[in-house]
């Protein structure tokens, strides 16, 4: 059983399990799946500064923080005890494209050639960590949700705004991956 869990999963199995998060949260407390709102609660708790957007009863939303702390712990457990010892399987076309950027190490889930501590104070770090993270936080709140809230819950409940948001997530990602990223790796 443990060996089976350690292997890479089929997308249908992974997708089914993630889809089940929707009814589980609804049945536990009429909670709508959404992760990006946890960032808003952190702002509301730590730095509200009289900004109306952050003045609300965050105590009612505290489940969200329990949930994300759980995700951190789950991430630790999965990597410490259930990790796949082999390289991550990535499509050969993607490998060829990334090789041009100097990314050749597939031993971890993330490319260690970008996501390493040494890169924090470099221009690469500025783009991939600081600007990237800022866009994730700013963009999800502006869009009113992220992949979980819009692309999974929103599409499951047939909401047009979520379909629009999901299409825009894709467009933004396609532009950066195919047009901007080659420039980033050329100059940094």
């Amino acid at each position, binding site marked *: 059983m443990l060996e089976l869990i350690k292997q890479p999963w089929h997308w249908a199995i992974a997708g089914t399990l993630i889809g089940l998060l929707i009814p589980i949260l609804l049945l536990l407390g009429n909670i709508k799946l959404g992760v990006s709102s946890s960032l808003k609660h952190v702002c509301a708790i730590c730095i509200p500064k009289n900004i109306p957007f952050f003045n609300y009863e965050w105590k009612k939303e505290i*489940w969200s923080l329990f949930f994300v702390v759980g995700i951190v712990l789950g991430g630790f457990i999965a990597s410490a005890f259930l990790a796949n010892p082999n390289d991550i399987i990535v499509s050969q076309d993607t490998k060829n494209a990334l090789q041009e950027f100097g990314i050749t190490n597939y031993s971890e*889930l993330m490319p260690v050639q970008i996501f390493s501590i040494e890169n924090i104070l470099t221009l690469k770090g500025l783009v991939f960590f600081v600007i990237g993270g800022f866009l994730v936080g700013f963009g999800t*709140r502006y869009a009113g949700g992220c992949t979980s809230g819009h692309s999974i819950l929103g599409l499951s409940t047939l909401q047009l705004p979520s379909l629009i948001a999901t299409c825009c997530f894709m467009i933004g990602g396609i532009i*950066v991956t195919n047009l901007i990223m080659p420039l980033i790796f050329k100059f940094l």
Partner: protein
Amino acid sequence: MKNLKYLFVGIVFGIIFIKAEIVSWFRIQEMFRFQSFYMFGLIGTAVVVGFLSILIIKKLKLKTIDKQPITIEKKESNKGQIFGGLLFGMGWALTGACPGSIYAQFGAGFLVVGVVYLSAVLGTWCYGYFKDKLPH
């Protein structure tokens, strides 16, 4: 403590996020290059499972474990989904992270993602600060 159950759900799904590899920067690259069906199949399956579960919840008029009604609110349409959506998509491609992944990646030992997280909190804060000046 009634919130502890969400900690437990988070742990289980944190494990699933890692094992499903949706937190992997490589998988997101494949997706935005249309070079693998993996992420499309995964998200599509999740949506179908979510849709069917909600159908069952509605048909059987299920309540929460505390006997509270289950409701699904309509999301409001505005330009934020377009502008914000484009910006988030760009950040997703760079970091390989939707907000859920950031937590799982950090737990998995990619401590440098802590910088991504702090920056995401700052981005959220800036949205709150400039909200009224942005087109919606």
